[in-house]
């Protein structure tokens, strides 16, 4: 589909624009999308990679770097990733953590993972999360001066610490 604004480039983005209570949809190319100030939009799932290129394009710090790091596992550089709109492998997330951070913030609104933890691979992590949660509960109980309940929670924390060897980080 052609961009409905310039009618020359291929549209890569679907925008929902709300004016006077009415919402209309517009399909735009990357450069016209850059010009628009509209923020009320959704992704068109089929064009997400292209959309990502546009997102990277808005803030392309990678292009300014004279020498680029390559991912040790898949060999891709960050500019190659921005061209495809996809990461090469799981190690890319570690290699390009700094560059990805603003993009992830823009797409997901910031925040760390709070979802499911894989039971087998994340066993230590699950224990640590449990420990963290209990520590928060302990603090709250102490503030409420509920010392008897706090003692129970403290014992639970100790038990976990003894079995897991404390706050070890998960690799």
């Amino acid at each position, binding site marked *: *589909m052609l961009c409905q604004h310039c009618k020359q480039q291929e549209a890569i983005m*679907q925008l*929902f624009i*709300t004016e006077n*209570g*009415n*919402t*209309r*949809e517009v*399909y735009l190319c990357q450069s016209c999308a850059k010009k628009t100030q509209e923020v*009320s*939009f*959704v*992704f*068109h*799932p*089929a064009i*997400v*990679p292209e959309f*990502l290129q546009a997102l990277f394009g808005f803030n392309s710090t990678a292009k300014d770097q004279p020498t680029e790091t390559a991912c040790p*596992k*898949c060999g*891709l550089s960050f500019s190659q990733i921005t061209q*495809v*709109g*996809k*990461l*090469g*492998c*799981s190690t890319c*997330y*570690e290699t390009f953590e700094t560059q*990805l951070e603003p*993009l*992830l913030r823009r*797409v*997901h*609104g*910031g*925040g*760390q*993972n*709070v*979802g*499911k*933890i*894989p*039971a*087998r*691979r*994340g066993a230590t*992590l699950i224990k640590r999360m449990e420990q963290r949660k209990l520590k928060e509960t302990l603090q709250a109980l102490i503030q409420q001066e509920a010392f008897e309940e706090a003692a129970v929670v403290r014992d639970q924390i100790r038990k976990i610490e003894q079995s897991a060897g404390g706050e070890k980080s*998960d690799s």
Partner: protein
Amino acid sequence: MIRKELLLQHSAWMSETDSPVVISSRVRLARNLEDFPFPHGLSQEGAAQVEKTVAQVLTDTEGENKELSYIPLTELNSIEQQVLIEKHLISPSLGGSTGARGVALAPDHRYAVMVNEEDHLRVQVLLPGNQLLESHRLATELDDLLEAKLDFAYRESQGYLTACPTNVGTGLRASVMVHLPGLVITKQVQQVLGAVTRLGLAVRGLYGEGSQAFGHIFQVSNQITLGKSEEDILTHLDAVTRQIVEHELQARELLRQQTPIHLEDKVWRARGTLQNARLLSSEDAIHLLSHDRLGTDMGLLPKTKDCFATLIVDTRPGCLQYILDRELDPSQRDEERARLIRERIA
């Protein structure tokens, strides 16, 4: 189960439910193997190796009552691939790509696990009506079984790692397919769905063609996958879905009160055409079936033999040709579509 029988199987999500607005609920989990590059970076051999590893584990879940059958897409012709797309069991991009890739299907299609799509695995559960939580429970059940045998790419801070950063975190995309003729006819759909898009949710059409109101059917899904728990994502989508349902039912009531004769005329005309037409294009059929469904939902028309979702899917070009077991040009399809609907709507 032989392949044709499996593909022609009535998909669980197409069953009739007592939900007048929500046709189906879908949950999809994106997962990748730690030791391989993401699918777009795989060599032919690498893709074949991922396929072999994953297909082996998927079919091993038989003892857990999952009974998944793995179908390599390289073994399917273009009509068979189209059938899977029209039944929402694979994505158009999986069908359109090349190399080692496939889908594992449960006998009733409630599970459809895509292999080597954008991610190594896309675990999908698709159920009829509003069953987001049950869909997620089933998806997690299978995910747990897979996770016991496969090392999925995962980081503490970023969760499940995916090829596209829009899926990272939970890897969860939950969606509902809703039928909104009342909101479309009363011209409120843009307003309601516009509000939905401002709540972090995306809206698209039945087969993802832009947001075209094909048969007044829309899909609403979450966009954010990182920084929110699965429970939060599902609860939010569920709450918004309930709001959409309420607005749709109000719009239908408005039509009944304000223009009852126009409403009756619209649904009876649809029924009359569906029962008598000798030629029906795909678009005509879906539009008329939508009005017919509105009529049966509102108690204005007697129920049809086959339900709405089944008729819509079975009259799509791929399914129609596969059911009739022969290739048809577009005009032959219009004729056969009209015949199939006449038989099944009686």
